[in-house]
Structure formats: structure tokens, C-alpha cells
């Protein structure tokens, strides 16, 4: 059972209750900032007269989880992509690789960790909704089963023709995400990335990595073969040489 969030930009009133609830739930210090930081896991941005939520999209095949060398990031079966700060050694490849630029770092601390939305994984396990969805007074952020949310989004788009852009952001982006967004303004104008391939980026590295064992075998045999042939050739040359190898072999 995979859970998710549906954010409807046409309904959001910009009160910021979601961001404040997130700070409280995750005990994050400081005020809500305008961009995502290690201490602001979700925020509202004003674009084209609308308010857009920024938060981790919780990809179905998360790029961050695929690139993490110590498997500190993981997709849980309930939907959230969670982070184990105890494992993280701080290579920041997740930040580099995330197609949505979500993971952020504690640059100001001598012992830093990554900060990002974890879709209130603990609350979901307890059968509750996320703190942001619970706090939303306008039902702009809805929590539920991902399949129900897709159905709900399609219904809203179908019922009011012209009121929405005919696209659910997150359905295919970077292989699909657990957080979905709908809007009446094209998504690129809301500051969301629209150049993302529909295949998960993780597939591109896995194509290479999955071939390494085969490659090692073939390459090793080839290299030994080269050595075998050249060494044999030297032996033959020495045997045929009247000097019998006493001369130098250049």
C-alpha cells in the first residue's frame, strides 16, 4: 500500500500552515525560509499569482537512494523516501543527482547531515496522515493512497475543463513520484522542472554498473591472454636467436 500527497495549486490560499506544521513535527530550528534548506523541508513559493509547495517528491525509483554509496536513503513500501543520518558520510551525491534538487546540507555545522522531507514516515506507519496535509485548511494538500490520489486528480481535471492544465505533475516525471501536483498554470512557469525524462535516471547508471561483473571476467582473460602471447613470442624469439637470449631484447 503506497501512500502519497496530492497538491492542488488552484486551491492553495498561501497560509503557510503546512510549512509551520512541518517545522513543528520534525523539530526543525529557525523560521520557514523561501527556499528549501536543511532546516526547511517544505515551503511555499509565489509564482504566476499561485502558491506552489516545494517538497521532496518521493520518487518511485529515487535517484538519491540509487546514488547513495552507504544506502542511507531508502524508499519504504508505504511511499516515503527516508534518510538514515547515522549512515550518511556526507558525500552529497544525493544533492548532485536529485532531479528535483531536494536534499539540502547543513553547511554551517562541523558535523553536518542532509535534510529533506521524509513524508512523515513515522506518522504514516502509525496510520496517520502527514503533518502538512493535516494542517491544510483548504484541502490543497491531500493525503491518501497514491492510486486514489491519481483518480481524484483526474476527476478534478475532467470535471472542470479548462480549469486545469491537463497533466498530473509527478505521474511520469523521473519515473513517477509519490507526491503529485495539479495546477491551472503550466508547470515550468511554476518553477518546476519539466525537462525530466520519464525513465528513472537511476536506470542509466545501473545499465553500466550491472555489467561490471561480466566485464571484469572478460577484461581479465583478455589482459592475461595478451601477456601470454607476448611472453610466448619473446620465448620463441630467444630460442630462435643464435645468442640464445644473451643479447638484449629491444
Amino acid at each position, binding site marked *: 500500500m503506497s501512500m502519497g500527497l496530492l497538491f492542488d495549486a488552484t486551491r492553495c490560499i498561501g497560509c503557510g500552515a503546512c510549512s509551520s506544521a512541518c517545522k513543528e513535527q520534525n523539530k526543525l530550528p529557525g523560521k520557514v525560509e523561501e*527556499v*528549501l*534548506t*536543511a532546516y526547511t523541508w517544505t515551503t511555499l513559493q509565489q509564482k504566476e499569482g499561485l502558491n506552489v509547495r516545494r517538497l521532496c517528491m518521493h520518487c518511485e525509483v529515487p*535517484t538519491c*537512494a*540509487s*546514488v*547513495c*554509496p*552507504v*544506502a*542511507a536513503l531508502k524508499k519504504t513500501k508505504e511511499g516515503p523516501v527516508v534518510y538514515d543520518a547515522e*549512515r*550518511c*558520510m*556526507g*558525500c*552529497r*551525491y544525493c*544533492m*548532485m*543527482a536529485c*532531479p528535483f*534538487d531536494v536534499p539540502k*546540507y*547543513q*553547511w*554551517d*555545522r*562541523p*558535523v*553536518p*547531515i542532509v535534510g529533506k522531507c521524509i513524508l512523515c514516515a513515522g506518522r504514516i506507519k502509525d496510520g496517520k496522515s502527514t503533518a502538512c496535509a493535516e494542517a491544510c485548511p483548504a484541502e490543497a494538500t491531500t493525503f491518501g493512497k497514491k492510486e486514489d490520489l491519481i483518480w481524484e486528480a483526474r476527476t478534478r481535471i475532467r470535471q472542470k475543463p479548462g480549469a486545469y492544465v491537463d497533466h498530473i505533475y509527478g505521474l511520469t516525471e523521473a519515473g513517477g513520484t509519490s507526491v503529485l501536483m495539479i495546477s491551472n498554470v503550466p508547470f515550468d512557469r511554476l518553477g518546476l*522542472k519539466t*525537462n*525530466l*525524462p520519464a525513465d528513472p*535516471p*537511476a536506470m*542509466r*547508471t*545501473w545499465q*553500466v*554498473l550491472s555489467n*561490471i561483473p561480466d*566485464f*571484469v571476467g572478460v*577484461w*581479465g582473460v583478455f*589482459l*592475461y591472454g*595478451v*601477456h601470454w602471447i*607476448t*611472453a610466448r*613470442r*619473446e620465448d620463441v624469439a630467444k630460442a630462435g636467436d643464435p645468442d640464445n637470449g644473451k643479447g638484449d*631484447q*629491444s
Partner: protein
Amino acid sequence: MNMVATQPTRRFRPGFWTAVFVVLFLAFCTVTVIRFTKGLGAVTNLSDQFPWGLWIGFDLLCGVGLAAGAFTLTAVVHLFNLKRFEPIVRPTILTGFLGYSFVIVALLLDLGQPWRIWHAIVYWNPHSVMFEVAWCVMLYTTVLAVEFSPVVFERFGFHAPARIIHRLITPLVILGVILSTLHQSSLGSLYLIVPSKLHPLWYSPMMPLHFYISAIGAGIGMVILESYLSKRAFHRHLEMDLLEPLARGMVVTLGIYGLMRLQGIRRNHAFGSILDFTYEGQMFLLEFTLGVILPVVLMSFRRLRNDPDWLVGGAFMAVLGFVMNRLNISITGMEAASGTRYLPSAMEIIVSVGLVATGMAVFAFAVRTFPIFPEGSGDPARKPGA
């Protein structure tokens, strides 16, 4: 004079370069202290928009890449059996080992929590290119240390372990070549994951191969360059009879690489950004002219290859172009998507320069202390028992 200069027991006399090194080293130590007390933000210009900077682009990517001469030459001598290149293998392995040590020190500074570096051994994620990189760094540094160890054993008169390693040299070299192939290409694979971020002048599904081949080319360039530098520092003569054929190898390698890069750009339909002379286009032109076109064209002429000045100049351009390529991929090509500009801070530069200087100082020390350069090649002092 020469005899004294190259004897392992030569008295160390501090000069101008020693002073420069000491200043750089102290600056490096200061930055290290600030970095570990105040955090990465206090010393670097890195940010949430730009999490990888000079220490990854130069220290890691170039440190590993320019160490490629070691596996190339060990393969040439021990697998392709071109024994005449043997005299320059030892300094090349030493450069490789120092290059990798340089990378490890840089990683210890760049990682947020370097004291957890052993986590890569315990917590596995075979889906991560960084996981592959971590294992290759560990294993190949070990292989390089073992390949170099006979030099140390000889110096202290332990001949038995040196003989054992000598007998195992073929499997050892094969292991080193496999690990290097994986490692060099994996640095290109690192960037396969960012198709929507890296500029199409550089992004290509073939990046692992681009990184591997260009590292061989630039690695050969480094071998030539380092022969020249040690010639100047230790008053040796240039082994032109060995370096000239190496330059031919460099021409072929860089030629193949250049062609592959152009094919990649054609597939991405990115020639427009060169013709439009965009920021990325200009940086690409600079990199490609310096690192591919000029070395390939100039070193194609036998007359220029046989002239020590031109030869060293060609190798220097190849190395410089290689460094520019790695910086373009890690910095220039990523800037547009990040929505910000990144210029390394003074303290980031101090760390990188300080590490290069330390590498050179250790190289100089090793050459004075151990039998690196062989008998008969500019080293008349090396007589058994001298």
C-alpha cells in the same frame, strides 16, 4: 656535483621552493582546522545549489585521471611486454600512488563526516556509482602501494619480499588494470545520473568511455611532463627514445577520444551552442583546442616529437586540456541547471594547491631516498653498495 645530487643519502638543502612549500603547507593546515571546527560553509563557496566544487572537480577527478599513467605503463611493460619502457615505470607508479593519496586526503576534507568513510565497506549499495568509486579508490591504492613496495624493500635490503612481489607481478598488474579501467570510467558514470543537469556539450551515455580514454591520453602526457620536471629538479637527461613513442601513443588515444566527443555532441545536437559562442561553447572550445586539437596536430609531426621543448609543450597542453575538461564537466556544465555561479573560494584553492605542493615534495623526497630512477639514465651515482 651530479653524483652527490642523486645519491639517496644526499643532504637536504632547503631553498626557495622549500620555503614556498612550507608556506603552502601551513596555509593548508590552517584551512583544515577551520573546516573541521566551523563546517564546510565557512571555508568553501559550496551551497545547496552547488554541492560539488573544486575539491571534486580538480582534486578527485583530475587526481585520479592524471594517475592513469601508472596502469597504462605497467600494462605496456608487463602485459604488452615492451620491456624497453621499464626504466620509467617506477616514477610513474610513484606518481600514481601519490595521485591516489592526494585524492584520499581531498576526500577526507570534502566529505561532511570523513570519520565515517569506512561505512562504504560495511553498508553496501551496489546500485551507486559512488560505491564503486569508493571501492576502486581503496583497492587500487593498495595495488599501487604493493607495486611500489619492492622499491622500499630494496632500499632497506629486504630482498625476499621484493622477489615474491616480482613473481606475482603479472596478476598484480592485471588486477591494477582492471581496477583502473573500472575507476576511470566510473568517474564518468558519476555524471550519467544527471541527464537533465549537465550541459549537452558534455553529457553523453558514453561518458564512462570518454573518461577512460582521455585519462589514458592525459596519463601519458603526465609521464612525459613528470620526466621533464624530474630532469630539471635532479639534473637528469630526458629519455627521448622512450618519450617520443609515448607521444605517438598519446596522439592516437587523444585522436580517438576527440572523435568520440564530437560524435557525442552531434548526437545531442549541441553544435549550436559552440557556433552561438555561448559561455559553455567558449569553455568547450578552449578545452578541446588545448586538450585535443593542438596536442594531436603538433605531436603528429616527427620533428616536433623529437624536440624536447615541443614534446613537453604538447604533453603539457594535453594535461591542461584534461584538467579543463574535468572542471567543465563538474562546474561549467552544471552551472546553468543549478541557477547559480560557482567560483572556488580562496581557501578551497589553498587546499588544492597545498595538496599538489605536498605531492611534489613527497615525490622529491622519495626520489632522494629510494632507487626510483634506474642506473644509466642520468643517475651515475646509483652503484650497488654506494
